[in-house]
């Protein structure tokens, strides 16, 4: 937004940790959802009466439903291991962006009402009652967590702040304090089928346009089928793939892969969205509803396989949750995992010779790869531990001759979030997004300076959108960010197997 004035943080020479700057992000909060955003999801339109009690009651409900929440609220010893691990802390210096301090915003209420020590001696153990000040802090700082799980890597008890912030957002939704961005989008998914509210005719039109573009560029008739009954593969991809750069080049890449491999595939207008924003707001019920649109589409279209496009949080829900939320998948072909990632498909085809790539097509580029947080730390690809790191890199290296990794402390399981994940990819949080991108931008600058990297490849719609928006703040061109399947699409030799 134009009225947001802030300074882009300078890249730190030695990556030293920032000094604490109390309340430096206390002004940052996303737009609050209006009744028309909350009510379609079954949440109260606005702040309810007795919200203090209702918040405590909802916390009690979640404690009984989710072991992780209870164990994580109990187990923290305040050792400090996580304090310098969050990209939002590194970018802002606001102490409430240290994972433990963020957790403590909820832990203080938990201790007050659900632990003996907090009931007897609240001052001793930091127990507090719910009040307006606490609610304000929750709304601000639980919307400065992108649920990227990096803190959990370094916690001796594996405490995952994502679980805590999901719970806090769920509690806030239940007392009528929702986040506009996520709730508005979820309502669109229920009504139309995707985050953008892109209806079937518009989608069909877009796909037709893509067919024409590819025909013009490559002189090959690559199809982008929609709602095609009896197709083998249902492709579920983030709706950004239908129009945004560089996402759409990724979609073209998937289509070319399917085309050359002779795989009969389709998109669905009913499930034209891979992302499941219900995860961001921590609502199992909502997540279940959104996920089951995909089950219904698969049944309606009579497909045999489900494949997901490049989308980080979507892949977490797909890989880790979809079987639980929308399975069992006994009506699909048992020879393939359900769901599959498009990179697993492409990787398999490269190995089997099902597609032919000429890496020289990308000789004008030097690539590096950004491990998307939710792919890296919340999912897997392939059949071996860590396949989510290996497969994308092997696909990139098959498509492109020049590849270097960024600093080992910033990739694989230690990767930094792009700064826009977890329901924060909204313009009302622009300052947070720019500052949160700092650690990734530093690692990128390093490989640009020392290895001549020209492009950053990603496999997440949020990362791609976030980077194209924030990279200019750090002096990079927004064209630096590319889809992995964009590289595949450029390297693929469509004529080779005609």
């Amino acid at each position, binding site marked *: 937004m134009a009225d947001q004035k802030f300074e882009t943080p300078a890249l730190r020479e030695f990556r030293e*940790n920032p000094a*604490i700057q109390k309340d430096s992000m206390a002004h940052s909060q996303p737009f609050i959802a209006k009744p028309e955003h909350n009510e379609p999801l079954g949440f109260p339109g606005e702040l309810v009466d007795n919200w203090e009690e209702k918040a405590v009651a909802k916390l009690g409900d979640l*404690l009984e*439903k*989710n*072991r*992780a929440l*209870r*164990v*994580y609220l*109990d*187990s*923290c*010893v*305040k*050792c*400090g*291991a996580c*304090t310098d*691990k969050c990209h939002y802390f590194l970018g802002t210096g606001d*102490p409430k962006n*240290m994972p*433990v301090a963020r957790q*403590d915003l909820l832990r203080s209420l938990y201790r007050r009402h659900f*632990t*003996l*020590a907090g009931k007897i001696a609240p001052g*001793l*153990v*930091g127990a507090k009652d719910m009040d307006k000040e606490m609610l304000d802090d929750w709304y601000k700082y639980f919307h400065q967590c992108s649920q990227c*799980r990096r803190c*959990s*890597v*370094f*916690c*001796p*008890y*594996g*405490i*995952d702040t994502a*679980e805590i912030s999901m719970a806090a957002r769920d509690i806030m939704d239940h007392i009528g304090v929702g986040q506009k961005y996520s709730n508005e989008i979820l309502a669109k998914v229920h009504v139309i089928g995707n985050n953008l509210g892109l209806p079937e005719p518009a989608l069909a039109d877009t796909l037709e346009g893509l067919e024409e573009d590819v025909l013009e560029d490559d002189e090959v008739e690559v199809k982008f089928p929609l709602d095609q009954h009896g197709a083998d593969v249902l492709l579920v991809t983030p709706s950004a793939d239908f129009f945004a750069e560089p996402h759409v080049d990724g979609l073209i890449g998937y289509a070319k892969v399917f085309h050359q491999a002779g795989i009969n595939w389709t998109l669905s207008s009913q499930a034209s969205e891979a992302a499941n924003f219900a995860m961001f707001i921590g609502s*199992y019920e909502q997540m*279940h509803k959104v996920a*089951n649109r995909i*089950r*219904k589409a698969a*049944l309606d279209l009579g497909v045999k396989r489900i494949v997901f496009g490049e989308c980080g949080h979507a892949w977490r829900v797909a890989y*880790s*949750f979809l*079987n*639980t939320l*929308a*399975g069992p998948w006994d009506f699909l072909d048992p020879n393939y995992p359900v*769901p599959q990632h498009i990179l697993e498909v492409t990787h398999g085809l490269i190995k089997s010779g099902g597609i032919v790539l000429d890496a020289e097509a990308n000789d004008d580029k030097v690539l590096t790869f950004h491990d998307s947080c939710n792919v890296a*730390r*919340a999912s*897997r690809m392939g059949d*071996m*531990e860590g396949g*989510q790191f290996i497969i994308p890199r092997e696909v990139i290296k098959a498509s492109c001759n020049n590849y270097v990794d960024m600093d080992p402390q910033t990739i694989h399981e230690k990767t930094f979030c792009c700064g826009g994940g977890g329901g924060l990819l909204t313009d009302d949080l622009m300052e947070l997004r720019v500052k949160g991108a700092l650690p990734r931008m530093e690692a990128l600058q390093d490989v640009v300076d020392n290895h001549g990297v020209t492009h950053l490849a990603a496999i997440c719609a949020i990362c791609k959108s976030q980077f194209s928006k924030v990279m200019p703040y750090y002096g990079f061109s927004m064209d630096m960010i590319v889809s992995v399947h964009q590289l595949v699409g450029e390297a693929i030799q469509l004529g080779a197997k005609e």
Partner: protein
Amino acid sequence: MSTLSVIYALLFYAAAALMVLGLVFRIKTYASTPTPLKIPLMPAPLTKSGAAFRVFKEVAFFESLFKSNRWIWIFAVLFHAGLALALARHVRYFQADVWMVIKLIQPFGIYGGLAMVAGLLGLWGRRIVQERIRYISGPSDHLMLALLVVIGVSGLNMKFLAHTDIVQVKAFFLGLMRFNIQELPTDGPLLIHLGAVVLLMIVFPFSKLLHVPGVFFSPSRNQVDDARDKRHLAPWAAPMDADREA
């Protein structure tokens, strides 16, 4: 029989009961609360034994802490390993016939006591000096360290400076185990040492010491990466499937 001996005996019984019952209750709560979704922190082991090994590495070597911060790891290992050795050394007070391994461990138990206090002071120092950790520290965090330091220092004091009647202490604890209360020596350092231990046992199930059972129940560490192969339905979530159209 002195009143003090009776008081300490009753305190130990009460503290032991509270600690055991409190922990059993807490562990039961953890075990009976469902995990509605698969949330292992990836990359995660693909087998149950792999996941068990991952938790073992966390418990035995503080693997994640090692990745995180070398200083905290060093102090934490000094403290925990030292405490373990010191505790092992104390087993002799509860055995009429002391096991050979406990006899062998005696000198190491003393090093353990020293390491424990050194580790605690290191952790406490960081808590005070390091700005970020100071920010997240509350009164209970300092008090917990103080309590542990009191236990360690009062114990070392009895070893190196003012010895207590260790034979009588052993008689007291053997008596406790047979519900036959014996005389407890009344020197100050011993009473402080034992009083602090009683307090630690009482607060154990109601404080952050719950990280001890907690580490075994952490879903991000103990879950197997098998979400695509197995559904993971929580009892409270299963009925939702009935609502879906297909």
